[in-house]
């Protein structure tokens, strides 16, 4: 199918799925506190954020999603939507050709230059931002409101909150385990205090040994990491995101550090980063995976 017919098909689906037209203008506040004025509830949304794309699908609002980025690869059906390119370098003309009445973007991964251009073109832009687990539920509510699917919000938010809570309760009786999470092996980049990963590790009954650093994703000294004697080492697997060998977890390198408790007890794991690093509806799945690695005894 050519791109034109795909776009037309998407338009057709979007039109068919429309509820009775609602004409009132609305002003909303985005996650950065900026006011966004929309002439009417958005019907043609382009998402430049993988977490938002996932949330739109989880709320059943995909009929209004007309465009995505190359990184919006989940759910698989999202890949059928037209892409505007990468998060850093989307094609503005492809984006304009999709005739969006709202673009959802993020200040973490998209470029300011893109926001300037969208403002110049008069396309309303809603910015999101996520670095706490609470932001996942906030995002669900916000996207639900934008989509006019408030009815679906409660069910999804409840499920997410319940799954997160179940993990918290399952690991509560066990002592905390020292965890080293390796976001990138060389140079060593780890989650700091400001990262949602640190919070997820704590919810999963762990204690991130790199939580003391105030930044979100600091570079860390391998020496310092080893000195803190992690009992579990988790390597982020970037392979599913891009497929290049640079992002493979390379456990051999870590196995040489035989003095580290995690290596002695064979507790070296890798985890698909797309379920942990996106503040979308798969966060509970990521949290459950993390908790099973940190506290396998809690899930026997």
């Amino acid at each position, binding site marked *: 199918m050519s791109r034109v017919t795909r776009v037309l098909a998407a338009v057709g689906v979007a039109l068919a799925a429309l509820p009775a037209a609602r004409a009132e203008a609305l002003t909303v506040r985005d996650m950065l506190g900026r006011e966004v004025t929309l002439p009417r509830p958005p019907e043609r949304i382009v998402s430049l954020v993988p977490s938002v794309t996932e949330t739109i699908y989880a709320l059943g609002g995909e009929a209004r999603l007309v465009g995505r980025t190359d990184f919006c690869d989940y759910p698989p059906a999202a890949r059928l939507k037209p892409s505007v390119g990468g998060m850093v370098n989307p*094609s503005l003309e492809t984006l304009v050709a999709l005739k969006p009445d709202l673009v959802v973007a993020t200040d973490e991964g998209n470029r300011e*230059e893109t926001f300037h251009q969208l403002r110049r073109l008069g396309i309303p832009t809603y910015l999101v931002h996520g670095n706490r687990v609470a932001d996942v539920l906030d995002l669900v509510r916000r996207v639900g409101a934008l989509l006019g699917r408030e009815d679906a919000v409660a069910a999804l938010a409840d499920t997410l909150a319940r799954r997160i809570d179940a993990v918290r309760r399952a690991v509560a009786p066990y002592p905390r385990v020292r965890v080293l999470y390796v976001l990138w092996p060389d140079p060593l980049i780890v989650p700091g205090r400001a990262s949602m990963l640190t919070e997820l590790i704590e919810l999963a009954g762990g204690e991130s040994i790199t939580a003391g650093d105030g930044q979100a994703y600091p570079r860390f000294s391998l020496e310092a990491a080893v000195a803190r004697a992690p009992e579990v080492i988790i390597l982020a697997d970037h392979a599913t995101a891009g497929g290049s060998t640079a992002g493979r977890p390379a456990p051999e390198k870590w196995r040489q550090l035989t003095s580290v408790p995690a290596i002695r007890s064979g507790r070296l794991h890798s985890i698909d980063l797309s379920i942990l690093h996106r503040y979308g509806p798969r966060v509970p799945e990521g949290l459950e995976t993390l908790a099973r690695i940190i506290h396998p005894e809690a899930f026997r």
Partner: protein
Amino acid sequence: MSPGARLATALTALALLAAAVAALAVFVGSAELSPGAVARALTGRASAESVEAIVTLDLRLPRILVALVAGGALAVAGVAFQGLTRNPLAEPSVLGVSSGAAFGVVIAQVVGLGASVPEALGTTAFAFAGALLAAGSVWLIATAPGGLAVQTLLLAGVIVGIFFSSAITVLISVLDVNRLGGVIHWLLGNVAPIPAGPLALFGALALGGFWLVLAHARQLNLLALGEEAAVQLGVDAERLKRRMFVGAALLTGAVVAFAGPIGFVGLIVPHLLRGALGHDHRLLVPTALVGGGVFLLAADTLARSLIAPAELSVGVITAFFGAPFFIVLLRARYRAVL
């Protein structure tokens, strides 16, 4: 043929080439508009709200103009630096001047300057200051009794460039680490459409720099004979050098402020023109203005087509062609020296 006639012929040929490349650039793009739709938008028969009008008039046309102006400015800056140093390898990015200007732009952004016309003028002032600082440093490092040695000049440029790039990384890492990815992307050099006001300012600044270099074209010809000879022929060599510095730094600063540090245009285009027209700066400077524009526009059209709908940075394309070019020139120069 008289120089005047040769200039007219060369400019006509380049203008025709520019028109052809611009026509191609306005009709191709990832929005896949039909030629008819683009023509409707260009002739004002499409409604202002339509996709073809927005894509053609707000995205493609301003981007074409930015590429033409930036490419022209960079090529003229290249000619000026080459005349000044009497070295065909001198060029804003090779000399580290682009990095100096980029450092200025990053400081302007940290200070909070945005995209409006007065703010863009302020950003250009920072870029100009950075470019002057970098060019001055290179000059001071490389000047030795007996003139500028080729190798020292190039090494000084590389070192100054690395220094300013590191300064940018440090500044961004300390102040605003979220923007690091965006800044790294910007440092590769990108042509983006800009609104009419800032675009006019960009054009005016580029024309100012061009005029300054053009006005000294005859003196640059005399300087090519050697500084002593030029002085004997009545050239105030110190004043000429200062003005060429200012002109080339202004051109580089403006391009970096409005498009980012794009490399090698000032190397490739003047060299090709010298091959076709000889070493007369009265011919080189005006043809570099048009030729540089054509080259960068062609490169930018490639940059937005090769991996559509994602886009490459145009600086990647110019470097891809420029780096081998640089090596060939360097080898030729060494053979001449040995």
